[in-house]
Every structure is written in C-alpha cells, then in structure tokens.
C-alpha cells in the first residue's frame, strides 16, 4: 500500500514549549490510523499542522504525493483533507441541512446540484430528521455528528477526526464507529483520528501511534501497542489490559 499521508520529522514549538517533537509516520491509503496519548501530548497540535492551521517549525508533510505543509487550511481542504474540530464549530445560525450544504458545495456548483448529496450525508449520520433545526439547538452528540457530516460532505480522501467520540455514550460511540467503518470500507476514505475513547480506537484502528510529551513513543498494530510497557506507563495504565 502506498502512503496517502507522510509526516516526516515534524516539530512545532510554542515559545519554549516543544508541543510536537520530530514526529514521523505514514498513513497508508485506505487505513484507519489512530493517534493516542495523554492530554497535552501534542495530538491536536500535530493535527492542526496537518490541516494547515499553522506551519510546522521543521519537517515536511506530504499528502497524495504533494507537499502541503505551509498551505492554508482552505487549500488543504480543497486537496482532499477534511477535518473536525475538537471543540465543535457548527455554524450556529444555520440549519443542520445548510451546515452540511456548505461542505457539499466544495465540489458542486449550485445548491440544487448538491441537495441530494447533502441528504445522503445527513442520512448516513442519522441527522436527516433534524435537518431543519438550527445547529445551535442541537445536543452535543448531534453537534459532533454534524461536525463529521460537514467534513464528509466535502468528499475528502483523508478525514481528520479530532476526538469526535468524547462525550458520547457507549451506544452512540458504537454507532459512530459503524459510520466510520462504512465510510472507510464502502467509500475508501482514509481516516486519521485522535481519540481518548479506547473502545472506539480498538474497534476502528488498523494502526496506532502513541504520542507523549510531543514525541512518538510507540507505533504499530493495536494489539502490540496496548501491550507496550512505555505506553502502559505513560498513558493507558495497567487496567487497560483486562
């Protein structure tokens, strides 16, 4: 399998703090790749560097064979990278449908052309019944789903998910896991996710990268990574092994 995303020696410093320290990994095309680690490990910073929120201080990021580090977020999205925000950012004054419509218009010229695709995406995320509600009126789980729906609507090749399971109940988590699995299997979308909910990570990921204090401390198949002593010590704790 060829790598869709290659992160090579990426670093990011905020004044004295090294948030991401020389991190390298490859996300193969069609994979579901998880980045885990304790709070403050640099996961979201790494994400924001990939999504173009800021330019990394060092290293390079290559997506689909082209260097994307330093490009603006909208350019990166147009290349085929969709993202969600950890702190959800719906368009509060717009209806659920119109929120998704904004994403769908990336590759469709008129709302009329995009309408059917919007409805498909809404159905896939179980938001179809709520499509006329204002985004500001949604509950948190629904907002998370809307965040995902909007990103999917742009038809990304790579989907970056920043803690979309946080705050969901186990049954909702399972539903979300199912959505991503189908997206990955049936539509061939490669997924890179940051997640604390190990239930979701273990169910989804084909590959895990563990960050700690900005550095990668382990990488590999899920079964191996969760048994790695350094990972258990720094993040999972012993009870994760039961």
């Amino acid at each position, binding site marked *: 399998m060829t790598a869709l995303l290659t992160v090579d020696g990426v670093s990011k410093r905020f004044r004295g703090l090294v948030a991401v320290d020389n991190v390298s990994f490859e996300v193969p095309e069609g994979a579901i790749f998880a980045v885990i680690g304790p709070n403050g490990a640099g996961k979201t910073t790494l994400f924001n560097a990939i*999504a173009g929120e800021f330019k990394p201080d060092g290293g390079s990021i290559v997506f689909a064979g082209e260097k994307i580090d330093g490009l*603006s*977020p*909208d350019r990166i*999205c*147009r290349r085929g990278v969709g*993202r969600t*925000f950890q702190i959800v*950012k*719906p*368009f*509060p*004054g*717009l*209806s659920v449908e*119109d929120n998704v*419509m*904004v*994403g769908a*218009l*990336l590759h469709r*010229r*008129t*709302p009329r052309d995009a309408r059917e695709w919007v409805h498909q995406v809404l159905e896939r995320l179980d938001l179809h019944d709520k499509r*006329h509600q204002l985004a500001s009126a949604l509950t948190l789980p629904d907002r998370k789903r809307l965040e995902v729906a*909007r*990103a999917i609507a*742009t038809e990304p090749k790579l989907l970056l998910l920043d803690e979309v399971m946080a705050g969901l109940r186990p049954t909702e988590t399972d539903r979300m896991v199912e959505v991503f699995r189908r997206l990955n299997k049936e539509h061939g979308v490669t997924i890179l996710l940051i997640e604390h909910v190990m239930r979701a990570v273990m169910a989804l990921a084909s590959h895990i990268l563990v960050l700690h204090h900005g550095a990668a401390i382990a990488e590999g198949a899920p079964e191996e990574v969760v048994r790695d002593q350094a990972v258990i010590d720094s993040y999972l704790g012993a009870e994760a092994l039961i």
Partner: protein
Amino acid sequence: MIKWLFDGVTIGGQALLAVILALALAAPLFVDDYLLSVFIVTLYFAYTGQAWNVMMGFAGQLSLGHAIYVGLAAYTAAVLFVELRISPWIGILAAIPVAVLCGAIIGFLAFRFRVAGVYFAILTIAFAEFARIGFDHFSAVGGSAGLFLPVASYAKFDLWNLRGGPEMFYYLILVMVIAVFLICRALMHSRVGYYWLAIREDEQAARALGIDTFRYKMIAVLVSAGMTAPAGVFLAFYHNNLFPEQIFHISQSIEIILAPIIGGIGTLFGPIIGAALLQWLAESLRVGLEAVGIDVPGSKQVFFGVLLLLVVIAVPEGLWPWIAAKFRLTERKP
C-alpha cells in the same frame, strides 16, 4: 421562474406581497407630492439597506461607511452630467466601477492585514470621513460649496437624462428596490450566498471546509459597493445638489444601516420593512409635532434612537423574522 420566486412563501404571504406591490404601483395616482417624497426616501433606504445587508447580513462584515459608495457614485455621475452632458444611464457605468474600486481598496487593506470586527468597522468610517474631508477641498467639483445639477422643470419627462417630476423618480427607485431584492434573493440561494453565511457564522470552520475566506469576503464588499452605487446616482439626480458634508457624512452611513437592523439583518424583507417603519413613523411624528406647534430640529434622529432601542430590546433579530413567524408569511420548517 415564478415558482422559484415564491419558494417558501405561504399563500397568505404571496397574497400580501401582491397587494403591496399593486399599492406601490398605484401609489402616485392617489398621494400628493409630499407623501410621494416620503415614499421615495423610504424606497431609497430600503435599497441601500439591502445593498449594505449583503456585506453585514450575509458575510458578517460590518461597514459603517457605506456613505462613501453613495457619495463617490453620486459625484461621478453628476460630474459627467454637469461637465459633459453624459446621461446618468451611461454615468452609472462609470459610477459602479468607482464604488467597486473603492470597496476593493478598503476590503484588500482590511482582509489582507486581518483587520476584523470592530476594527474593520472603524476602517470603513475612516475611509468615508477621508472622502468627506477630501471632497470638501476638491474645488473642481465644487468643494464644500457643493455641486449643482441643472434643475428640471416639473413638466418635463426626460427619462434618458433623469430630468422630471417625482413620479419618475418614484417608479425608478421602486424598480431598483425590486431588482436589488431579486438579486439578493438569487445570491442568498447560490453557492456564494452559502459561503458568506458560513464566513459570518465561523470563519475558521469555513476555511476548514475549503472556503477561501479572503476571496469571498472581497466578493461581498465588491458586490455591496457596486449595489450601493446606483443609489448614489439616484440621489444626485433626485436632489440635484451634492454637498460633501451631507452625502459622505457618518449620519448618512448610519441611516443606511438602521433599516436592515430594525427590519432584520440578513433577511430579504428586513430592509424594506425597516425603512418603511422608520420613515413613515418619523414623518408622522414630525407632522404631529408640527400640528401642535412644536418644531424641534433633530426630533427624527431622537425618534430613530428610541425605535432602535425598542427593537434591540424586544426583537433583537429584527422585526421581519418576528412578523413572518407571527403571521405565517413564510413556511416554518418543522
């Protein structure tokens, strides 16, 4: 086409719209010149409010200096007419680019250097003030003494040179209001309209969905400036005189934004309802005060202030969303 026009409007709403349109078309047959002038001012502010709304209501960029586009367009067309006898219909082809160019300069400076929110609003005021003072000293176009167009005789009806009575100006501004309404409606239902709303709601999220926010904010400013320009040309030929102290004054900019704020920012009917309410009530108040022998200059402004306060407290979204829901004029989606 017709179906598209009434999409989302209930039967009651359509009927009301038809009645209002019929009344508007027939109005000059029934009212005197004074009332007609009130209607003209009302439609003028409905028009400018609609144009301003593109920038603020759709794209979320607060302009407090729209007088600059009115003034530049007015001077451009007026100078071409006075000096070269060029018809305003040709003059407007120069006036619109002048206003758009001015918008481009303001927009580029602001968005390139990430001037946003309140600071953007201050920048727009600064430009309008700069134009006001500049034109005060621009002696080639009359400076502070003003620029005068040859006054038309009332009997004349010369549509090509816009020389004629108030009826002509009434129908002209009515057509302009309808046209700008339709344009705004089309914009609102287009890709650019959705992108503007996204930028208004959350710029960072908009960028993450692939929207080049600089480009779409620029488009909003250019469209809004270009739409405002015909109002300036209208004003020049309707009033027949231009004074920098009036046309570029901040009170002009403020009066432009009052109608959409009171009627409902970001809505299509808001600017029209807001303008009607403001001007009609203000004129009634003035006539009423005069009848009891009180003639206070500035009573209109005080009234505007009070009305604005009441609306902001009672219906902060503006009157139109409230009226539309109350009387079921548009479809409420479940």
